[in-house]
């Protein structure tokens, strides 16, 4: 099994962080968030139930996903708690994004995709024949790897979703635009140029615009597919802060290649791996501190300490 991984991963990105540095970062980052000006999250932590007691938002049982004949995900069973940032980590090609995109049925757009097993959101089967996919995608928003603002103004980017779902009143739309941009920490930067094209903003601003746009349809869950991989470190930090803050209100599921990022922002971590038949499996799922300090599985430890390369 390890052979398969090392082959597939040769030449891919390598994380050579030692387990000690990661833990040190984890602790340091928690300190730094307390001292930063966005101290609000830390204060609110006490409002929340401990992770283990939070209700389950997304869950899968023995879920497998096929692209035609090829089985891309195998027997995934996971229960993701509400109002929590959960990170999915793992080597390239192990199916992290595929799993993420099956929660809002984005994979439906690819011909030949088939899902077996159960996938539920708060107990409702999301692959049921009767499910209205547009409503599901409204409840489960998504932020993509590359910022992809729609080719329209900043204002219209935010208003697009609410308009699709029947909000026509201008004052109401104005209110939504301001609230979502504020929530996404972008309002102050763009409030004087709402008519400007969304793609004229910087990469980091565009990604925050995409987050604001997602918030505008009032989702319960936000899926993020490597949201910082196209951004510079400063923008990455902004987005990470934002993720933590939003994690108090929304269920956030984030795929990341950056293990420090997973350690910094998430409370729960899922580690995925690719088996010899190239099917993605969930190796281990648990509180982030446990995954990074006392992983139960050898493969998890190998990946986290960078022994895959």
């Amino acid at each position, binding site marked *: 099994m390890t052979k398969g991984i*090392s082959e597939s991963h*040769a*030449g891919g990105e390598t994380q050579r962080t030692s387990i000690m540095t990661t833990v040190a970062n984890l602790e340091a980052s928690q300190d730094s968030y307390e001292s930063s000006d966005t101290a609000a999250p830390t204060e609110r932590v006490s409002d929340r139930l401990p992770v283990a007691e939070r209700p389950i938002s997304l869950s899968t049982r023995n879920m497998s996903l096929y692209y035609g004949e090829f089985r891309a995900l195998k027997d995934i069973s996971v229960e993701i708690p509400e109002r929590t940032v959960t990170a999915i980590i793992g080597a390239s090609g192990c199916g992290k994004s595929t799993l993420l995109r099956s929660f*809002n049925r*984005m994979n439906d*757009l690819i*011909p030949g995709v088939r899902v077996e097993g159960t996938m539920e959101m708060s107990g409702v089967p999301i692959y049921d024949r009767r499910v209205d996919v*547009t*409503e599901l*995608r*409204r409840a489960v*928003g*998504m932020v*993509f790897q*590359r910022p*992809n*603002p*729609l*080719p*329209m103004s900043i204002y219209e980017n935010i208003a*697009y*979703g609410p308009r*699709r*779902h029947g909000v026509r009143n201008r004052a109401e739309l104005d209110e939504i635009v301001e609230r979502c941009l504020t929530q996404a920490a972008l309002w102050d930067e763009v409030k004087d140029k709402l008519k400007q*094209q969304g*793609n004229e903003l910087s990469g980091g601003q565009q990604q925050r615009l*995409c987050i604001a*746009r*997602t918030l505008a*349809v009032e989702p319960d869950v936000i899926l993020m597919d490597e949201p910082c991989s196209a951004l510079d470190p400063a923008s990455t930090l902004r987005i990470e802060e934002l993720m933590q803050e939003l994690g108090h209100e929304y269920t956030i599921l984030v795929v990341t290649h950056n293990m420090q990022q997973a350690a910094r922002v998430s409370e729960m971590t899922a580690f995925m791996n690719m088996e010899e038949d190239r099917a993605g499996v969930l190796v281990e799922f648990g509180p982030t501190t446990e995954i990074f300090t006392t992983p139960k599985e050898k493969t998890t430890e190998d990946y986290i300490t960078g022994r895959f*390369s």
Partner: protein
Amino acid sequence: MGGYERGNFNSRLILMGHSYARGPSANWEGLHSLTEASFTAPRVSREDLEKRLLSGSRAERGTETAIHLLLLGATVISIATTLGIVFVLVNESFRFFQDVSIIEFLTGTVWTPRFQPSLFGVLPLVAGTVLVATIAILVAAPVGLFTAIFLSEYAPDRFRRIVKPMLEILAGIPTVVYGYFALTFVTPLLQQYIFPDMIIFNALSAGLVMGVMIIPIVSSLTEDAMLAVPRSLREAAYALGATRFEVATRVVTPAALSGIVAAIILGLSRAIGETMLVTIAAGATPRLTIDPRESIQTMTAYIVQVGFGETPQGTTIYYTIFAVALLLFVMTLAMNILGQWVVRRWRQAY
């Protein structure tokens, strides 16, 4: 010459590749032995490098020049032909405008060059052309756009792979076939069910059939423009809960708008220049009208008529065809320039 060094270089690459694949520790050892070896002698000697760099083969350079000239020649043929056509048109038209003033030509409403009194007002011909082209584009623009939306956003891949070539076959049917189709099938059909007293040669049936003829041009270019819209934009809209129709109309169509407009303009200039279909089905009666049931004559059909008749060279009538052709050329050129401007002006950055 120089082959030894190159071979050596390649083998080093292979060596590195090998050791790299074996994992970090093996990689390190490989690198170590390599560095040792390369410290003992200069990696590249000056003489060898000079030989390699300065002795480029003459023959190779000669071939390059020949290919360059061949390609340039091919390009020059089309440019030279265009310039030649423009020269002939302008030159012959100049003689026409010695007999008839430009003002009379462009503003006159009666075109009777072959009767007495001879009047050379081109507007009836322009009107005929515009009428047929308008009917054609009213058919081709919506049908072509919907076809393109269906093919790019709705149809499964396999369906598209079958249907698109079939549409392109439609574009390959000779226009004379379309002409007789309009004359012997569409016109009787219209007479039977909609306009019983319509005459046999009319603008309507020519325009409708011409519309069908240019659907493939419009739909094919429109679909190309739509497929060029990045998937990330569609995903953005789908992720916000947009339906397929909303994605097609609110995201893909605006993003592809410049390409769509270009496709329509290209279809329109094709309609303006089309000759055989209108010669056969639209009639030979220059008439300033907007009633599509009437018999009319387009600019192109007039040129055919005079070109095939026994028109003595050097007469005013003979020169009319160059003046009409020049005007036609200016019209299609204007359409193409407009199209290019639209593409630039409306191109949406995504």
